[in-house]
């Protein structure tokens, strides 16, 4: 009880900026709820999705965010396997980011469903969970597993810190180790959703899953780097430059792989072109005069290349201003690439050759923004509690 009161006190006290931030998040969430009511009332017809492009902006965001969630592992590995002390301090925040990102993923999938009220059909025994045949069933499983794993690690760690008792290493160590393959698995399985569809040659490529992982290890840590600096500026929580630069180094490796996989992909499609190149053409150069995604994907490539150069040169990587620029470019670049760049062209041209130029409408954009706000809210709340406990502002009575 005492602890709950403390948590509430921590959450309601804060600077003007903190309160303004919360107000903004609640406002965005409210807009999304109103629009979601409209969507559930009239059906998904209020979006721009139609039969030829049957997944759109929601699933694009879902796909991107799975990557962000998986990126917590980028901190876990150096912290626990290589005992990087600076990163050990921030790994908790990485796990909180994973929780927020997976939560957003689950919301995005739910709002994309035509009949979300039938969710109980997915519960094994009560409903029918088509496991292991449906790769979507796998995804539901690994995403929830990863969510609960991180929730447990965070609450357990914070509770021990709060009561100032030592961790039970025998309990925590295997779970931390397990979180590494779990993080890889959520992204692999999400990629396999697309890979497993020979009807869509654009997705039916072996390189897709590795490229997913590579780009995830760019975008997730990039977002982390920015968030860590915001936290360091606005709270008493300390994040060392050394830890930030280490993460920057990891992003560099990941981006080099991502670009290498991109070259492999483009070579395979272009060296001797076949009928299967239509979607690639639609994305990169336009197909039969339809070229709305072309400026986006080239922007994404330019962002990723610029960021890669900034990260490759030690001078710009080890300087916060240029490192931050690189992170922003990478986040935007991968968001375009893994979102609209991956999901939309898979459907264009459709299996019957129709070119439907899907682009999200205002409702989809506002609802998605609301989901992001919900994720940010989860992050803010959890991070605020975690920081208060870590800095000792919040601790059990008598300690």
């Amino acid at each position, binding site marked *: 009880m005492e602890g709950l009161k403390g948590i509430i006190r921590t959450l309601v006290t804060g600077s003007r900026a903190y309160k303004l931030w919360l107000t903004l998040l609640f406002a965005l969430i409210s807009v999304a709820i109103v629009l979601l009511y409209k969507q559930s009332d*009239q*059906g*998904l*017809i209020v979006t721009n*999705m*139609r*039969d*030829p492009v*049957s*997944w759109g902006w929601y699933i694009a965001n879902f796909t991107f965010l799975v990557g962000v969630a998986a990126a917590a592992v980028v901190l876990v590995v150096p912290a626990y396997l290589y005992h990087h002390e600076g990163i050990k301090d921030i790994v908790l925040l990485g796990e909180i980011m994973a929780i927020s990102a997976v939560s957003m993923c689950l919301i995005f*999938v739910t709002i*994309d*469903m*035509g*009949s*979300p*009220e*039938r*969710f*109980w*059909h*997915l519960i094994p*025994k*009560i*409903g*029918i*969970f*088509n496991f292991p*045949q*449906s*790769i*979507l*069933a796998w995804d*539901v499983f690994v995403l929830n597993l990863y969510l609960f794993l991180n929730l447990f690690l965070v609450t357990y760690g914070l509770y021990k810190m709060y009561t100032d008792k030592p961790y039970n290493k025998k309990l925590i160590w295997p779970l931390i180790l397990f979180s590494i393959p779990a993080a890889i698995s959520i992204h692999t399985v999400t990629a396999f*959703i697309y890979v*497993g*569809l*020979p*009807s*869509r040659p654009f997705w039916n490529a072996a390189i897709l899953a590795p490229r997913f992982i590579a780009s995830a290890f760019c975008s997730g840590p990039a977002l982390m780097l920015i968030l860590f600096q915001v936290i360091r500026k606005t709270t008493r929580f300390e994040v060392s430059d050394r830890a930030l630069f280490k993460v920057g180094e990891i992003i560099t490796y990941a981006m080099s792989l991502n670009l290498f996989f991109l070259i492999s992909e483009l070579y395979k499609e272009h060296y001797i072109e076949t*009928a299967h190149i*239509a979607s690639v053409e639609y994305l990169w150069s336009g*197909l*039969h005069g339809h070229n709305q995604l072309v400026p986006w994907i080239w922007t994404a490539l330019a962002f990723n290349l610029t960021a890669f150069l900034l990260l490759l040169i030690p001078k710009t990587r080890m300087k916060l201003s240029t490192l931050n620029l690189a992170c922003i470019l990478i986040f935007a670049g991968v968001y375009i690439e893994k979102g609209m760049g991956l999901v939309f062209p*898979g*459907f264009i*041209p*459709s*299996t*019957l*050759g*129709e*070119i439907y130029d899907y682009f999200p409408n205002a409702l989809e954009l506002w609802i998605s923004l609301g989901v992001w706000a919900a994720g940010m809210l989860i992050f803010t709340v959890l991070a605020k509690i975690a920081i208060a406990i870590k800095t000792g502002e919040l601790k059990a009575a008598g300690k």
Partner: protein
Amino acid sequence: MQEKKDKGKITRRKFLAGLAVCTSALALPIGGANASTWEEYFRQHFKRLDKDELDTILKNMEKELSEKYRKAVTVKATPPMENVVFGYALDLSRCIGCRRCVYACVKENNLSRTPQIHWINVLEFEKGNKKWQYLEHSNRYYNPEDVPQKGHFYVPVQCQQCKKPPCIKVCPVKATWQEPDGIVVVDYNWCIGCRFCMAACPYGARSFNWAKPYIPKEEFNPSMHYLGNRPQYKGVVGKCTFCIQRSREGRYTACVEACPVGARKFGNLLDPKSEIRYILEQLTVFRLKEGLDTNPKFFYFFSMGSPVKS
């Protein structure tokens, strides 16, 4: 196996129903939910319903739809016939692209008029187009005064009733499956609307109800099958069932009957004397996207030489 085992266990079913009541209190709008809404919400998968449950459901559905559409409605759940696997063949040299099949299908299967849902898509190609199998060279929205348009040929596409259907494998809740007579069906009360099957289908054969389907009362077809042409719901996927409500009663599908040039052939693949078997054995047939090995039971053929040459 799973389904058979479940049929005997009434105690668990009751327990599950109780559990579902609790969870659904959160999910359903409180106001306006009457007894049948609840029944519908907790209804089990088609294959898990026993005979009594199914009979009650069909009876209630008949009553409800009769009142709504002011017609004597029958909803059956006719099982597959023994030793029957349905197959289809389409004569591309005869098809004139008139789309009578499309509209007969819409009417027969109670498909939504607004928004428009078609289970058959007719693709128009220019003759002489050597790359016609790159389907983006087709036009689905052709709209001339007369058909066939000079210098064009037409390829109608609907569910190919694959023997190895990718759509079934990907469904996370087994809301779609293949019946013993080869027809791939959807349980409209079990589909959660994730649309993974639509991404998996190589033939654009599945249609999503993006809004509440609208069917005009005067055109409502009252003779229905639970897995076929009963009205669908907002937020679920539907598809061609070879007119299961007709074919399982030994009748031709609506598209076969509507075709003015006799381009559409339908029958039992297991019957050596059937017309469909004659076509498969005597003529050269092909299937769409053979490279994907979906093994369709929908064949195309040219009875009078290739229209591409004419």
